[in-house]
């Protein structure tokens, strides 16, 4: 093992090209993972922010907020179901908005797309609904407390009274308002989606302590006869594109990890062939097969770690630019899992050369 490290220190150039290829593969893997996390995170923040266990849609909506409608009678019926401790309506309108400056003028010519969320139940990340004309705004919109946001073509103004994090919906920053403000926004900006007072797209349900949410979900659907109730996790998975994105990116990331293994296998196969004679000498001098293989594996781990550090460094350096161009979000978990995967695949690849090491005959050294 020590010999493997010594060789790495004395002849690092020999490992340079393989390390470079693995560094680019690391870059590719982290970029793919960050892109997936950015896409999913930006689409699901509204649901992940909820403290409720369940969300109720109309049964023909296929778990889509846009297509779902629940009337006041249905929402009241949900509240009466055994095991439900609280219920509140939820509605989202995707509209354009402008952050105004102190003079009441738009800060930029650009109109931002936002998701105006009308809600009745507080969420983990969002307090109780603010008074009419005020809003909690997702920090990704770039508005601060005290700023005014003008929503829709009618420029309906709401004052920012708090900032919230990670509450986007379909990659649009959340603007959280009271049901009354939400109705005003719909009437002014999306009259095509206007709903009667008390009608919401969905309802959030908190379940009583100790009650299985799945059981409550079934009871809700039985009681109303016209709803489809999902746990928040299932609702996240049912958002348009989430499962497809995870599946497609999974194929690409999986294939890239296999490439890592094959590249490592190829490189160590080549250097093992080059050193067959030296391995014979080492074995003749008493080194064990395991010791020689351990040297190879050590080298694989070190090359993978250096490649990972290079790839990670490159992506961190570029992350500022990336975040502006694509929905890229690099999390610690993603970085760690990529690093672990890289090391595992490199070790697996290098172990393919173990058979050749085992076959080296120490007697061949003396002819």
């Amino acid at each position: 093992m020590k010999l493997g490290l010594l060789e790495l220190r004395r002849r690092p150039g020999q490992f340079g090209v393989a390390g470079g290829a693995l560094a680019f593969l690391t870059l590719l893997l982290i970029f793919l993972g960050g892109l997936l996390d950015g896409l999913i995170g930006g689409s699901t923040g509204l649901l992940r922010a909820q403290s409720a266990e369940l969300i109720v849609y109309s049964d023909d909506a296929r778990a889509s907020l846009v297509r779902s409608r629940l009337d006041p009678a249905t929402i009241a019926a949900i509240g009466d179901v055994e095991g439900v401790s609280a219920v509140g309506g939820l509605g989202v309108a995707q509209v354009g908005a402008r952050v105004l400056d102190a003079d009441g003028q738009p800060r930029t010519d650009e109109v931002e797309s936002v998701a105006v969320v009308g809600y009745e139940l507080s969420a983990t990340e969002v307090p109780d609904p603010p008074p009419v004309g005020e809003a909690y705004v997702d920090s990704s919109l770039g508005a601060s407390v005290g700023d005014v946001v003008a929503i829709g073509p009618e420029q309906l103004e709401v004052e920012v009274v708090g900032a919230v994090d990670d509450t986007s919906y379909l990659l649009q920053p959340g603007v959280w308002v009271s049901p009354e403000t939400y109705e005003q926004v719909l009437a002014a900006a999306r009259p095509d989606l206007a709903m009667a007072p008390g009608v919401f797209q969905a309802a959030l349900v908190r379940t009583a302590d100790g009650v299985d949410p799945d059981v409550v979900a079934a009871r809700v659907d039985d009681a109303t006869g016209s709803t489809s109730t999902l746990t928040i996790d299932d609702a996240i998975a049912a958002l348009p594109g989430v499962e497809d994105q995870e599946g497609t990116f999974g194929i690409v990331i999986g294939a890239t990890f296999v490439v890592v293994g094959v590249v490592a296998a190829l490189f160590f196969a080549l250097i093992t062939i080059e050193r067959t004679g030296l391995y014979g000498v080492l074995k003749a001098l008493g080194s064990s097969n395991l010791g020689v293989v351990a040297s190879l594996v050590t080298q694989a781990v070190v090359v993978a770690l250096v490649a990972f550090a290079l790839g990670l460094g490159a992506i961190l350096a570029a992350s500022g630019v990336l975040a502006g161009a694509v929905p890229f979000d690099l999390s610690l978990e993603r970085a760690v899992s990529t690093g672990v995967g890289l090391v595992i695949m490199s070790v697996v690849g290098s172990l393919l050369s173990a058979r050749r090491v085992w076959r080296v005959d120490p007697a061949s050294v003396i002819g």
Partner: protein
Amino acid sequence: MRLSLREIRRAKLRFGLLGGAVGLLVFLILFQQVLLGSLLESFTGALERQSADVVVYSEDARRSVAGSILSPEVVEAVGAVPGVAAAAPLGERTTTLSANGELVDGSVFGFVPGGPGEPTALVEGRLPASPGEAAASREDAADGFGLGATVTVEPGGAEVTVVGLTDRSRFSVSPTLWLTWEGYVEVVEAAEPDAPMVFPSLVAVATEAGEEPAAVAVDISAAVEGTDALTRSDAVAETPGVAEVRTSFLLILSLAYVVVGLVLAFFFLILTVQKSAALSLLRAVGIPMRELVTGLYLQVALVVGIGAVIGTGLVLLAAQGVGDALPLSIEPLEVAATLGLVVAVAGVGSLLALRRLLQVDPTDAVARPSLGGLA
């Protein structure tokens, strides 16, 4: 040349691993290329394959069809702008469709028959002429959207009969129905009983003969307050998400191409260095350099060829397994262009090995102690 082929035969594992690595990388490149093309086509095909030269959004929609809503007065105002030959409402609604007894996500468009905004890629049947008729995306014909099928639009329960099929005219990666404007109004009224009226999402514009659509689009945006007019091709390119998808895939593909070049470079460089003694001997016994170079490139070509076969095979398999949500269309020309680029990258990647090969000196052979030299 025979020698290089024999070398491959004797070192199956090494060349097999290289072929496998290149094959997987070719698969990654091809898969993402196909995915990008199919995704964009399925995302904006409806916008791309309709007859309007210019489409007009509400300014606040940020060029999102789903986010745009215009009043009938705007349609009239757009029609009065110089250079506009005809203006018609174009509606779009994301909805739930019931076909073959299954509920699926879908999009419904409403257009004025004979006016701008008509679908242009009808491949079977005819365009709808009255409410209750629809043209559906051909890609979904097998899932209950075939000619003669009845599809229910939810909520509201409005039923439409498929009388025509369009090609590559889906929207938002989902089954897409084209209805007459009256049919669309009926469907939306059934779904949104509380809405005061059905609003057009866009205005579809036909420009007068000889007018430049881009110039007319600028004039419309300037003349009609609260609108944002774009040519058809700009509308497709500016659809929210399209630029981000292109940038992301471009980065991923670029990295994959770099890795192909690097893997081939390090393999053939190491191999050439390891063989340098044997190569100098071959040079010393009179084998011309040209033959050694030919041997190197024969090996590169074989490895890339095997990789191309593996990669293409895997893409064909993956296309079956990706699911119904996004039908992947594999265009032979696109595959050929991608493989051509892989070959070019392989050529560049092997330059390091070529340089090392050209440095092989026949006199090195007589300097080797094992051959009686005095090194």
